[in-house]
């Protein structure tokens, strides 16, 4: 099962290199965490400030989508190598769900 060994867990890999990797990783985590809190903040403002709903709904949905992407890529490590298959299936599922919802909105509730 040689394929199960990930290179980062290999002690032979340069220590400095791993340190730098970990630091970059941490910085990305903190940055995305700050971004997510900021976006949550905007979402609250949009609701509290009582914006017009035709403006508020798309903004909220957009922010929600961005949150999902950040969550997946930075906190659930989809940005790392070896997640191609999972990403493919995730996007296929999302596409099919989207088409289904689109159908129900356009040609079912006439």
């Amino acid at each position, binding site marked *: 099962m040689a394929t199960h060994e990930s290179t980062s867990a290999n002690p032979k890999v340069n220590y400095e290199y791993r340190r730098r990797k970990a630091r970059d990783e941490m910085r990305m985590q903190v940055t995305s965490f700050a971004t997510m809190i900021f976006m949550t903040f905007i979402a609250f403002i949009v609701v509290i400030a009582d914006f017009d709903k035709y403006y508020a709904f798309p903004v909220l949905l957009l922010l929600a989508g961005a949150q999902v992407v950040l969550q997946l890529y930075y906190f659930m490590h989809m940005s790392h190598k070896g997640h191609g298959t999972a990403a493919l*299936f995730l996007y296929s*599922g999302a596409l099919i769900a989207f*088409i289904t919802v689109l*159908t129900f909105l356009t040609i*079912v509730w006439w």
Partner: protein
Amino acid sequence: MSTVAQKRGFLAVLWDYLTTVDHKKIAILYLISGGFFFLVGGLEAMFIRIQLAVPDNDFVSAGLYNELLTMHGTTMIFLAAMPLLFAFMNAVVPLQIGARDVAFPFLNSLGFWLFFFGGVFLNLSWFMGGAPDAGWTSYASLSIASPGHGIDFYVLGLQISGAGTLIAGINFLVTIINMRAPGMTYMRMPLFTWSTFVASALILFAFPPLTVGLFLMLFDRMFGANFFNVSMGGNTIIWEHLFWIFGHPEVYILILPAFGIFSDIISTFSKKRLFGYAAMVFATVLIGFLGFMVWAHHMFTTGLGPTANAIFAVATMAIAVPTGVKIFNWLLTMWGGSIRFTTPMLYAVAFIPSFVAGGVTGVMLASAAADYQYHDSYFVVAHFHYVIIGGVVLGLLAGTHFYWPKMFGTMLNETLGKVTFWLFLIGFHGTFFVQHFLGLMGMPRRIWKYLPGQGLDLFNMISTIGAFFMAIAVLVLLYNIVITQVKNVRVGNDPWGDGRTLEWAIPSPPPYYNFKQLPLVRGLDPLWIEKMEGRTEMTPAEPLGDIHMPNNSFIPFVMSLGLFIAAFGAMYQIDWRESGGEEFVWSLPVLIIGMLITLGSMAVRSLKDDHGYHIHKEELMDDTDKGGKE
């Protein structure tokens, strides 16, 4: 079926099969139960054809006819075709990718038992107050109004067996992604493995809509909801969409593995590498994707409007392109090959024109404007029987002959196999070719009887005679299976002599651990590569070592049995509530007890550690079926 098994008592063998988590034994379970339901569905088809043989016939009553046609469709799709495909997937895919088992052996067993109990539940409807009678599509406006418990059996039975199918599909996805032998890259996988992979992905995405639809139906019928009740603000069209969002990918779930079986058979018996392998893979994936964009072509006459109809018509026609790519690749694989017309190859050769005929009528039906003429006529019946029998069933029969030696270690008789083939092929075309014309003459589908003197008599009689040919063909196949197993002449690794893929590199049937040492895969058709370099077996990719194996478990059986019991409670609580708590007082306790059995066995599975066991290196060295190398 191994020589060891025959020395044990019947009960020991039975217990072994009830608890097995071995993919090869689960394959046999799928084959037996799928085969049984195939015979049941076939019997229902024979009753339909006998009723329609002559005009104004009274062989069955109108109500019984509706039940027969509903159960024929439902049984054949869910309980015969899919399990039989799962039988071959289980038997062959782990071997083709060089794995010792599927990724989740326990779930594999659970998937089988859920399917089995769901199927048994559905068929018990015959003995418990009437079968479902709203067609296999069970359109909501009709099925909500259906009296009795028929539709409840349909909803609950399919819900249980659908969960099993979903589990099996996920299992194959994980297996194919994670368990490939060293060197077995995606683009070296045999086509049957590829098509299993894509079909499993379709199962993953297509079964949830069915589950949702069935749940809505369940709540409408059993708990007084009104999702589909127009008079209460529901919308009956929702069921049609949900059903076909599942239903159209479902036909690709059936046909793609059949394509895979044929691809392997054609390349084996043409002694050639599959022509355009990469294009075949791409076409398979593309068919899978497009399969989700076309469901509304089943609903052209529902009134979706010209825009929606046009979009779905064009998308449907687009599927003909990748399918055409596959057809030409099969033809070009045979072109210039050294062809041996064995029984599986006969099926493969006959499949091509039969399936093309079904494809051509498919494009005709895809034209939305013309579909208004064909809709709900025997033309549609002829079309989908041409693709399902001409594609899937021929594939299953070919696979039965092709993989029988690998599954059971014996060769089915070739002469009888060819007799089966010719009887079946003639019967199939005889039954369904004339139905195109019946449809164009205006005979609607799902009718109980027709009047004499309308020009429908002759073709209906021909159709019924054809059905008898198919029935005789199946009987010959059964006879073939029985005498083959009684004679029990054992065969070696590669009984066809031209095996190209990994499954033919190990004994038939394989030892329970499959590969003593995982094989090193050096290209497409790995065994063929080794043969061409003068070797008879695969080069091992690892030193001989201990093999980790899963323990047998009775829990999947109990888990499924719990749902089976709970389904009776869920169904009869309707009567309990309608009688004001007077009768059927046992229904609610039965529902709760059933669920407790299932949840309890899930808890046992979760809380009790089961680490499996190891086959030690020393035992493997002693095993003589294939010498281990250090």
